[in-house]
């Protein structure tokens, strides 16, 4: 973020007088905007209910544009997911998407994101957990939503995340003898020589 440097208000072009030209031109930090949050009514209800119902699991509730985001400690994942599916106030019976995001900064972490949807209540949410990059390992949710099967196998291929308790964690989209994890940020996009 912008550091309050010696030349106060230096990033305002209107008062750039002799002060800013005397010092070497400093590149202005890009001011990255955040996408605005606008939860739909059912999302607001859900965001209220989640901390009440899942009080024992040390969850953090936030929001991303129109979806409720729930951060869960990695060792509570299966319990939370089980409750989200079975508890009639949530009823998340549909796993839309399971994915891994490789966050390089600050110290290399994987985020596993579960996109859930409830056919009964027609509401949606994301569940997120963080894993260390050195030994990424998390319990499988195939016992809760069978549709997680191939998603987990694919993420195992591309990111090397281990899903404990998955019935058949063999390569799905990559060849058996493939070396490395091409989904990760440190894997180059083109690692072949021109020929």
């Amino acid at each position, binding site marked *: 973020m912008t550091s309050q440097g010696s030349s106060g208000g230096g990033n305002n072009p209107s008062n750039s007088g002799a002060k800013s030209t005397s010092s070497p031109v400093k590149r202005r930090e890009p001011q990255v905007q955040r996408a605005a949050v606008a939860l739909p009514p059912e999302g607001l209800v859900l965001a209220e209910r989640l901390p009440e119902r899942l009080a024992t699991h040390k969850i953090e509730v936030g929001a991303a544009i129109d979806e409720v985001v729930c951060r869960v400690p990695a060792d509570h994942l299966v319990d939370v997911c089980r409750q989200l599916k079975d508890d009639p106030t949530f009823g998340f019976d549909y796993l839309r998407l399971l994915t891994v995001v*490789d966050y390089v900064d600050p110290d290399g972490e994987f985020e596993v994101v579960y996109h859930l949807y409830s056919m009964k209540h*027609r509401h949606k949410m994301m569940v997120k957990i963080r894993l260390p990059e050195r030994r990424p390992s998390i319990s499988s949710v195939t016992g809760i939503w069978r549709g997680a099967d191939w998603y987990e196998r694919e993420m195992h291929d591309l990111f090397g995340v281990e899903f404990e308790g998955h019935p058949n964690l063999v390569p799905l*989209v990559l060849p058996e003898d493939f070396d490395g994890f091409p989904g990760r940020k440190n894997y180059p996009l083109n690692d072949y020589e021109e020929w």
Partner: protein
Amino acid sequence: MTENAAPTNMGSTITQVPNPEPGTVDMMVNMGPQHPATHGVFRMELRVDGEQIQDLVPHIGYLHRGSEKLCEHELYSQIITLFDRLDYVSNFNNELVIVSAVEKLMDVAPPPRAELIRIIMCEFNRIASHLLFYGTFAIDMGAITPLLYNFRDREKIQALFESVSGARMMHNYFRVGGVKEDVPDDFESRSLALCNELEHGIDETDRLLTGNEIFLERTSGIGVISGEDALDWGLSGSVLRASGVSYDVRVDEPYSRYDELDFGIPVGSAGDCWDRFYIRILEARESVSIIRQAIALMEPGDTMAKIRRIARPPAGEVYAHCENPRGDLGVYIVSEGGERPYRLKIRPPSFCNLQALRDLTVGHYIADAVVILGTLDIVLGEVDR
């Protein structure tokens, strides 16, 4: 792979099992990857007792191109071309997903005319995709004729696409904030005329196949999946609706201007192959009605919002999805505020639908496996990405 890891044959988990009956043994059969009935490069490993399937292991990945990784290195406008190539028989629907995701993240709305053009193109594309389905599905069962009729109609749709976007496939016509250019002058009259022809074509397929005795024998009661199982597997689209679950993104989470249009969502009850086929006939008819309504709503105006040429959405994460001919196609974008996404993940409907194949086929005959795979209507470009 370590030395003491269990030896695997391309990820196979099937082992030869001796049959308790004397003198017979279960046979392993490989179907694909080069097999016309697998609709692309897809391999099924079957363990069969005579003609009956005892176990099935699907193998995918032959077309894996790393599209998601590639997307993370491209500008948002360039990603549209990659989305064209996911599900290569419904290009417009794919383009709509990525542009609406970026628009949602940037909080821009395309002009009303552009929204309607998008809807019309997407619905035409849905019909084109379903026409291809009827034809290839009939071929899966040995009927060659319907394909010829369906391709005749599909060709007309593609001619319309060509007049609008300049390409029969891989259009790259939608843009973040609108569409590339306005439609030609004769677009409305041409579309309405085409709607009449398509309606006739769909009726023709309906008469030719739906009530046919052999067709009914081959499809009804085959490959049944219940609504709960379908949800558990994460199925979507016609496959889910055939099992009695009413879920269509156009209605349940309306995007674009679908909330202004009046259309029905056909829902099946049996969850068998016949339902999955007939639902697509009904859906195509609904699409014709959507197109007519959308054309009636069209008014002259801009086709592009006033935004920067290079999209630079703010930091944040977004999940946007649309109802594709194959199901619920979604995209999850994590943006750091640059002109390229940090992470992009596609929710491919064919990939999810294909997962249930084993449950659907075990206990049926090999010839039925071909029919069941046909009704899942997969496109391998999207399964493998």
